[in-house]
């Protein structure tokens, strides 16, 4: 049985942060969970989807975050507890609905979990979703460890029901994707009956209609919303998720939230004796801030250091409050991102914080290892550990697709370019995708930008315009852009890299597939039907057919006006079906290999660069690394010497 359903109270288990959040929701009696995949958030919905049947919950990978939020809100309106999960960017997508939802309020407990990615480890931005809580005027919780990830999630539902609004619980990569010990709680029994009561009075929160704001009358719903946030502030004053540890009168008080509280605790330990002068105020409820609680602790020290990721959210909100207190408390020294003590970009870590504390305390840390080792090892690593750039996987269809896209644009010869967006294929901005992408922004924005470029004919723009997006991205955000391009007669060729799933985040299904999140069969919405339905000439190719793909692109590029779609369909090499079996057994005939000679110049290893290939320097021939090769056989069709041989794999 899944850990998420083990009903052994008090059992201590090693859980990933995302599992802990999922477990917390189960312990809260969750009924509906929705989300859109995105690192580092995906495992929450994934874990819930795996137990959906046993747990009797409904789990959905929605088409995008806004729809996910709407679906979760509907469950709440019907009196159920619902969870809505997304990565930081997703909140931007959902925010339009969320702003309205915050004003209408909710009924059954609803928790929104954005997972931020400080350091942009797996993102193309490091947006700090906490600011939304303030803008939307809803409570914000930031679990500081794995146990809290579970406990705060469970509690967030109760809080939501108490104030009748959704609650934001914000995680970060190093919590979501890290694992730690969690002591399990009880799983409630029984099921809530869903019913949406709407016949009551207009403003009745129990039984009236759910309407965000009466036009011209913010004094009703908006004021009510602000009363809720005041209630939350009161509750937070005594929350066990905010606590202090350290000496009674510390020289330095660290105010930290989220995983930074663990880093801070470690940094204090790293400072040894000097660390004894530091106290840690660990904040779990960071909007609205519990004013009295903070006032009490801030008054204990003269130097205050804020440690958080990514932007100075906590810092600036505390400073705002502190501005009101100066008369009573006298001036203090504040350190954080605004003072330049810590960076306001990238991840935190214990070393960074220990160094910052050392500066504030004016002490020097003892080196943890001989300096000579560090210098020698560093010099050795510079030589022996060559940089590892990100690449498409062995057998990745994107490598083949961009090989053809790049070739077609070069052949076309009119300086055409590709607008891209987010997914594994973002890597096509780099050598692994032949530096093809020339714009990369949010989901679906490649199509939108291409549509914009495609209307600049009147201003003399003559370059061919390509957009690429993934299959999941197509449904998520590219459809409106394509419709816009069609209606406004923009000239563009849109390439849909259909690798049969949301590959980047681990193969979550999307509406184009015949299954849903709960692995039930579902009616697929075919991409080609949508495209043809809106009047776009649409072709489907296998990107492993390099010539066919290139020729299809060339003929599209030669056409003058309007929008066209080329669907390049081939499953991701990490997809379960592909992982089961290689299609080909591939090898290099070393006698035929031209290697560095004219006529080849190592096309396969120098340009195509599938990690399954390597260059045998001694023998001066290319070789296949059987351990790495995924057996797609594509390299066999680029080799000018016919030296790469493929046979059907047994």
């Amino acid at each position, binding site marked *: 049985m899944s850990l998420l359903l083990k009903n052994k109270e008090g059992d201590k288990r090693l859980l990933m942060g995302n599992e802990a959040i999922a477990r917390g929701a189960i312990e809260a009696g969750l009924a509906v969970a929705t989300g859109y995949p995105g690192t580092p958030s995906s495992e929450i919905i994934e874990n819930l989807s795996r137990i959906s049947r046993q747990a009797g919950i409904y789990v959905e990978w929605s088409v995008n975050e806004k729809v996910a939020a709407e679906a979760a809100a509907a469950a709440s309106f019907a009196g159920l507890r619902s969870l809505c999960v997304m990565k930081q960017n997703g909140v931007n997508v959902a925010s339009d609905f969320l702003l309205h939802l915050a004003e209408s309020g909710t009924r059954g407990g609803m928790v929104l979990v954005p997972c931020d990615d400080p350091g942009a480890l797996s993102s193309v931005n490091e947006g700090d979703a906490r600011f939304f809580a303030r803008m939307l005027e809803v409570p914000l919780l930031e679990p500081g460890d794995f146990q809290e990830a579970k406990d705060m999630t469970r509690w967030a539902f109760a809080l939501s029901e108490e104030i009748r609004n959704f609650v934001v619980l914000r995680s970060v990569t*190093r919590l979501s994707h890290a694992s*730690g010990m969690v002591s399990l709680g009880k799983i409630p029994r029984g099921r809530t009956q869903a019913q949406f009561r709407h016949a009551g009075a207009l403003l009745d929160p129990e039984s009236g209609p759910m309407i965000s704001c009466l036009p011209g009358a913010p004094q009703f719903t908006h004021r009510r919303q602000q009363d809720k946030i005041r209630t939350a502030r009161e509750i937070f004053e005594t929350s066990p998720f905010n606590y202090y540890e350290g000496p009674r009168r510390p020289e330095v008080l660290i105010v930290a939230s989220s995983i930074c509280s663990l880093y801070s605790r470690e940094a204090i330990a790293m400072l040894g004796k000097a660390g004894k002068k530091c106290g840690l105020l660990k904040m779990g409820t960071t909007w609205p801030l519990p004013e009295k609680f903070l006032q009490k602790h801030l008054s204990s020290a003269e130097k205050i250091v804020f440690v958080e990721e990514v932007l100075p959210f906590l810092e600036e909100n505390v400073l705002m409050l502190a501005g009101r207190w100066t008369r009573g408390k006298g001036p203090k020294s504040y350190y954080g991102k605004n003072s330049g003590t810590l960076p306001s970009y990238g991840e935190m*870590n214990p*070393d960074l914080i220990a160094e910052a504390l050392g500066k504030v305390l004016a002490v020097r840390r003892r080196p943890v290892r001989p300096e000579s080792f560090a210098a020698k090892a560093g010099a050795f*690593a510079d030589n022996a*550990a060559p940089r590892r*750039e990100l690449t498409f996987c062995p057998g990745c269809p994107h490598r083949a697709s961009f090989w053809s896209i790049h070739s077609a644009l070069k052949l076309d010869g009119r300086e055409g370019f590709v607008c891209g967006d987010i997914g594994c294929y973002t890597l096509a901005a780099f050598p692994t995708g032949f530096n093809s992408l020339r714009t990369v922004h949010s989901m679906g924005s490649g199509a939108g930008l291409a549509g914009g470029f495609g209307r600049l004919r009147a201003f003399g723009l003559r370059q061919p315009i390509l957009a690429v997006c993934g299959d999941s991205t197509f449904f998520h955000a590219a459809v409106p852009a394509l419709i816009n391009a069609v209606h406004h007669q923009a000239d563009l060729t849109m390439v849909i890299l259909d690798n049969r799933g949301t590959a980047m985040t681990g193969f979550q299904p999307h509406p184009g597939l015949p299954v849903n999140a709960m692995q039930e069969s579902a009616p697929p919405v075919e991409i080609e039907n949508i495209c043809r339905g809106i009047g776009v000439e649409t072709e489907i190719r296998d990107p492993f057919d390099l010539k066919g793909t290139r020729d299809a692109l060339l003929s599209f590029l030669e056409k003058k006006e309007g929008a066209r779609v080329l669907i390049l369909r081939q499953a991701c090499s990490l997809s379960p079906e592909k992982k089961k079996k290689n299609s080909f057994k591939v090898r290099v005939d070393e006698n035929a290999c031209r290697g560095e000679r004219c006529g080849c110049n190592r096309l396969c290893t120098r340009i195509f660069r599938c990690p399954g290939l*390597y260059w045998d320097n001694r023998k001066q021939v290319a070789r296949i690394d*059987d*351990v790495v090769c995924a057996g797609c056989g594509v390299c066999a069709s680029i080799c000018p010497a016919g030296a790469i041989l493929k046979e059907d794999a047994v």
Partner: protein
Amino acid sequence: MKPGLKNPFNLIVTGVGGQGNVLASRILGNMLALGGFQITIGETFGASQRGGSVMSHIRISPGSTWSPQIPKGCADAIVALEPAEGVRVLSDYGHDKVCFISNTRPVYPAGVIAGGAVYPPIEEIRSGVLSLVPDALFIDATEEAIKLGRPILGNIVMIGALAATRLLPLDRKKFRVAADKFAGSDSLDYNLKAFDAGRRLFQTAMSRRSRPAYPVTRRS
């Protein structure tokens, strides 16, 4: 519970995306949790799995939750599924007394496959590492896994080798329980074989040593 284990004991498992780094750290974490330790594992996956460097930080403590990032220079053991990644981690987190066990099979970075960047021969890496960490150990984990017909199990061979050092309480029984949870039942057998192969490789390597390397005296 093993008395006298440093608190926290800092273990790093490193490799390249696709080598089964995350799985290895999960199995190790679960084995140790079964032994009653408080475990924190910090790792990144996502984009880095696309051919990038991957690293898991495992903090092992009798009773407290440590941060998911090990401070620089503070690793107690480094298990490298890929030699160059081992060197990278050694330079950031290692010291001369660290327990360092590395696979010998390189995974070439794209820049090396393309030419331009150079990946030194494994002998050079080995002697360089030994000059930094005299007790470092290199084993042919992937070759061994290839013999089993499942090259991906190089990660499990490495777990076996780490277990054989007896630095941590990692016995075969716990491995069976933990592996069972993550590996499909059909592959548990292979996993056990790989684990045993790792232990054997360690023993062979040790018997060739002039002086016993383990257990080493640890810094406090």
